[in-house]
């Protein structure tokens, strides 16, 4: 199988608690994949580990069989909307333009082509008229569209999106999904951290059920079943829980 996103025995700790434990998977190209699990299940950490923002304790995680540093240009990360300060002095267009900073390098300046691309991306997400607005004036849904436009302007092969639908109205959510489905048809692969169960079957081709361990992954119709969901959202077996936390404490020298 030609895997675009691949992990082997990945372990990630935050201080004393394990957030990802022995996670292995390989996911092929051209899919819309939902990463589903309860709060604190390590969904965001999986994306962060994949991007190299969090250093795994052991194991490996890679895109296109290459380490992340080689493929950064092909990946667009859409962080959680709450992760930034929306009172920051910057306009919508400048946020979108950031999508091109990776290519510009340290001392580059945006060219006219970059500006045009940023404007077009704003147009695609339906925010052309907000280009010069200060970002604090935007609503939650508009802020999320802005992040999406920033990802589009990178022209990536892979999207990694962290909870793009929190605090977003239903119309925006549907529009974003439509835009992403169009991207998929162009051969892009999209990973979305998602927590709204009723929409999973409608949105995603594949699903990964995550709760510290990877419970199951594969085509939504096969995987998104009551038994698997009970395992994902039910309390973890206490022995496992305790053992995992013991392991993390030992590793970081608290025991």
């Amino acid at each position, binding site marked *: 199988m030609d895997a675009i996103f691949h992990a082997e025995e990945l372990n990630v700790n935050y*201080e004393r608690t394990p957030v990802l434990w022995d996670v292995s998977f390989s996911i092929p190209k051209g899919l819309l994949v939902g990463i589903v699990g309860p709060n604190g299940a390590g969904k965001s950490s999986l994306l*962060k580990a994949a*991007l*190299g*923002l969090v250093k795994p304790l052991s194991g490996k995680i890679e895109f296109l069989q290459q380490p992340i*540093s080689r493929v*950064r*240009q092909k*990946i*667009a*990360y859409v*962080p959680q909307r709450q*992760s*930034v*300060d929306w009172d*920051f*002095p*910057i*306009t919508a267009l*400048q*946020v979108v333009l*950031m*999508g091109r*900073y*990776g290519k*510009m390098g*340290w*001392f*580059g*300046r*945006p060219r006219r082509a970059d500006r045009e691309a940023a404007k077009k991306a704003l147009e695609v997400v339906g925010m052309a008229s907000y280009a010069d607005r*200060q970002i*604090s004036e935007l609503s939650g849904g508009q802020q999320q569209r802005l992040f999406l436009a*920033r990802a589009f302007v*990178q022209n990536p092969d892979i999207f*990694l999106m962290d909870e793009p639908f929190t605090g977003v109205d239903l119309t925006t959510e549907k529009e974003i999904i439509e835009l992403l489905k169009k991207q998929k048809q162009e051969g892009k692969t999209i990973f979305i951290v998602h927590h709204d169960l009723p929409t999973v079957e409608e949105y995603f081709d594949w699903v990964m059920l995550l709760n510290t361990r990877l419970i199951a992954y594969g085509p939504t119709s096969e995987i998104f079943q009551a038994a698997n969901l009970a395992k994902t959202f039910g309390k973890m077996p206490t022995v496992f829980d305790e053992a995992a936390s013991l392991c993390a404490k030992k590793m970081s020298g608290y025991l």
Partner: protein
Amino acid sequence: MIDYFIDPILRAPTWGCMLMCLSSSLMGVIVFLRKKSLLSESLSHASYPGVVLGVAFLASFFPFAEEWAFLVVLIGAFGSSLLGLYGIEWLEKKGKVFPDAALSFILSVFFGVGIVAASALQGSHPSWFKQVQMLIFGQAATMTDIHIVIYGFLACFIVLFLIAVYRPLQAVLFDAGYAHSLGIRATWLERSLFSLLLISIIVGMRSVGVILMSGMLIAPAVAARQYTNRLPIVFFLSGLFGVGSALIGHILSVEGSLHWSTPESRFSLPTGPFIVLVSTAWALFSLCFAPKRGVVFRLARIFAFRLRCLQENILKYLWKKKSSSSKDLHSLHRSSLFSLHWVLRRMVRHGWLQKKCGSYELTGDGYQKAAQVVRLHRLWEVYLTHSLGREVERVHKNAEEMEHILTPDLEQRLTLLLANPKKDPHHQPIPDKYSL
């Protein structure tokens, strides 16, 4: 006045202060936007023991090299605040200490060590002690032209560096995780920014002093942020405010010293407190009076909104009752008699109301305006019950507020969404938008 810039003795302190404050107010923007203002406080205090130890070293081994003291001061301060920075990082990461605890721990430990070392120096080398003492509150008067060159070079370097890395810097400040995902190495940038921050603190110390240094970093940035939403302009204004307060503060301290000096005793006011007072006073003024974000204008807008609510409530009341005396209106609307009369008079003047035999009535235009308020109120009630499924009895109170908030744009969207309803949930008619 012009003497402050060209006179061979006076010019060095003036230019020195201005260049120092330029560097620190530019770096202050970064510290402020990263919400790390306390860090600068800790780092400036942490530089003090290095200063004292450096001077002590020079005093013991090269007692005749007093003109090189400033260089030793720079190096010592840099070393010890760098140590402080590592200390804070170590405490946070390895020691699992909360950031504020780590910051205050380093601040007090380092500054304490500095004070102890300084008193030891006072005993052994009293003449050198002055060099060290001066840095606590800053002393610009003894600067010479060589300082202008050094501080000018540093200020230029900081400006050029900021221009060169402006874009990656903006990305890292706004969204560090995303910047990292693009391959912008935040750690590299962070290291260079911290070095520059340390340098600007150390350079600024000479004019502002260890204790007040963080005020000089933060105050211009706070003031600048009030006036603009553009990052380049925040930098520009912050630099401008920094230079301005340095100039004014320095002149005040010199003039003050001259004013209070008598032929018998020379009196010298420290430069630092004056500069910091000027810049914090300006920051305070900006927080109150900046056009968009200033507290005073926001209070004024809130007050204006209250009056508008009162006006719209009066319109609505008269729309239902046809006429009413000001006494009835006062008992119904919880507002001061003064603002009620003010609003009533304004409404008469604007042509919404007319006074007949001591009671108020709506004019034709006023009737239209009132109908619009009622329309918004009832539209919102329909929206709450039909679209959001609230119970009919519980929608009135919320609509009382929203009728003042809804914009024409929102009204249009509601009309479209609800297919221009004719009745509200209480079976009252909704006034039509175009009922002229």
